[in-house]
């Protein structure tokens, strides 16, 4: 506060606050950045007020973008010189993944952050009765009000059971895509290069976040896989879908699963990483149910059932022939 007399150019401070917001939304963002931002905010109420104002306003623009495609005919056709929006299978946008969710985390107005560590699992129930279950190593932000229900899945996987409200759609944004619930249960999983949306019950709309009106109505059993290049929809049996959700009770189920895939799946839940050293054995398949945190049990199966060798070098467990 004391520096207020010295630095008074409001527009300079606004510009500085805008730079912070730009970095957090669009750049790389890690714990050190968050600390630097916290320090800047603590320096002066002038900083904090400028930041809160821009952040609050910027969030409003996001809401507008989220509404656009499904209000057909709203936008004047002449505005469609936004042609960059059309016909693009959206690239996967990495939106401000937060390095650390600490107690220091600056909570944006009306928004809460939920996160799990590697191997963690959490269930959140909201006032409207909707539930979200977070799988391992997941970060999501939720803005739940009587006028808006938006969740940003920044990282990981979550299962949604939504109480439908025709006046207040439930929107999930992830990897540049958007899922709008029409009364439903669905799974959203975000990996490095892909996004999966599986619908168990009800109906959802799936489309590119914000942009153009191309969206698909998904039916139960639809499993969408979106990558930077393409979007594909496959039909899955109830059993197949159920197997995708076994993490909710702390297990993974393998059925003729290639070893490489099984290892990748298990690695999501554990800090001790498994590595398949030989491509020839990575195609061997395994079946069975195993607790997500039971690396030792998995190793035993690999050794005793598949007859492979396992070496533990401290950080990694290497599987060889």
């Amino acid at each position, binding site marked *: 506060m004391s520096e207020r007399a010295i630095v008074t*150019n409001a527009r300079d401070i*606004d510009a500085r606050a805008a*730079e912070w917001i*730009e970095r957090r939304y669009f750049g790389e963002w890690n714990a050190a950045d968050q600390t630097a931002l916290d320090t800047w905010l603590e320096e002066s109420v002038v900083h904090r007020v400028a930041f809160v104002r821009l952040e609050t306003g910027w969030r409003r*623009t996001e809401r507008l973008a989220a509404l656009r495609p499904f209000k057909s005919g*709203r936008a004047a056709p002449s505005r469609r010189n936004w042609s*960059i929006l059309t016909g693009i299978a959206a690239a996967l946008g990495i939106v401000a993944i937060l390095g650390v969710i600490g107690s220091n985390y600056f909570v944006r*107005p*009306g928004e809460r952050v939920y996160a799990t560590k590697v191997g963690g699992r959490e269930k959140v129930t909201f006032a409207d009765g909707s539930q979200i279950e977070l799988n391992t190593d997941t970060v999501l932000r939720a803005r739940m009000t009587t006028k808006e229900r938006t969740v940003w899945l920044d990282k990981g996987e979550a299962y949604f059971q939504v109480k439908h409200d025709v006046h207040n759609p439930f929107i999930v944004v992830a*990897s540049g895509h958007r899922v709008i619930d029409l009364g439903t249960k669905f799974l959203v999983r975000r990996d490095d290069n892909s996004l999966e949306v599986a619908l168990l019950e009800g109906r959802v709309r799936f489309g590119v976040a914000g942009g153009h009106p191309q969206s698909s109505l998904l039916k139960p059993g639809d499993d969408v896989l979106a990558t930077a290049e393409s979007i594909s929809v496959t039909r899955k049996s109830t059993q197949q879908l159920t197997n995708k959700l076994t993490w909710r009770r702390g297990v993974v189920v393998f059925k003729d699963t290639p070893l490489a895939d099984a290892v990748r799946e298990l690695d999501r839940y554990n800090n001790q990483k498994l590595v398949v050293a030989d491509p020839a054995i990575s195609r061997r398949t395994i079946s069975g149910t195993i607790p997500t945190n039971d690396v030792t049990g998995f190793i035993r199966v690999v050794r005793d059932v598949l007859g492979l060798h396992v070496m533990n070098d401290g950080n990694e467990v290497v599987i060889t022939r």
Partner: protein
Amino acid sequence: MVEESETGRECASHRTSDAAMTASEVDLWFGREVLPLEAALMQFLQHNWRNKSDIYDFRQEVYVRVYEAALKKIPDRPKQFVFATARNLLIDRVRQEHVIPIEAAADLEALEIAADTPGPDRIAMGREDLRRLQAALDRLPLRAREAVVLGRIEGLSRREIAARMGIGEGTVAQYLARGICELVDILYGEPPNVRRQP
């Protein structure tokens, strides 16, 4: 904790607690109650002060005073509090500078009028907001607009936008930061004649 004794009278708008508010509580209150008054506030300041280059500094100073007061106690009547703060600020400045830039008689009446003007959030959201957003986007220079659309509407990261547009990430960052500033100004209803030149 001292605050414990206050738990019986929880009611956000009629809170009489002396307990200090946390910053995030104040942030929420500020976004909900104060920012929607920005158009009216800017109008009020502009109407009552000749030197337009001071307006942004005034707005900042009003916000800081309001925010600091709210950290101690959330004002019961945000609108009255914001405009009283603005008015006091202008009066302080007049005294300091020994000038009288306030239009004759405009002072009090303007305050009354401005305080009755509904903020943008009181007007139905939706179509009006969409129109404002588009107007704001249209006002950005072509390349900056493209960056903002790719970032905001398509959800791309800075790096992806740079790749898509074939320009450096530093330039994209500048476009985006400027876009954030201008979009928020327009959304909160900056009066037309105070706008900076493009």
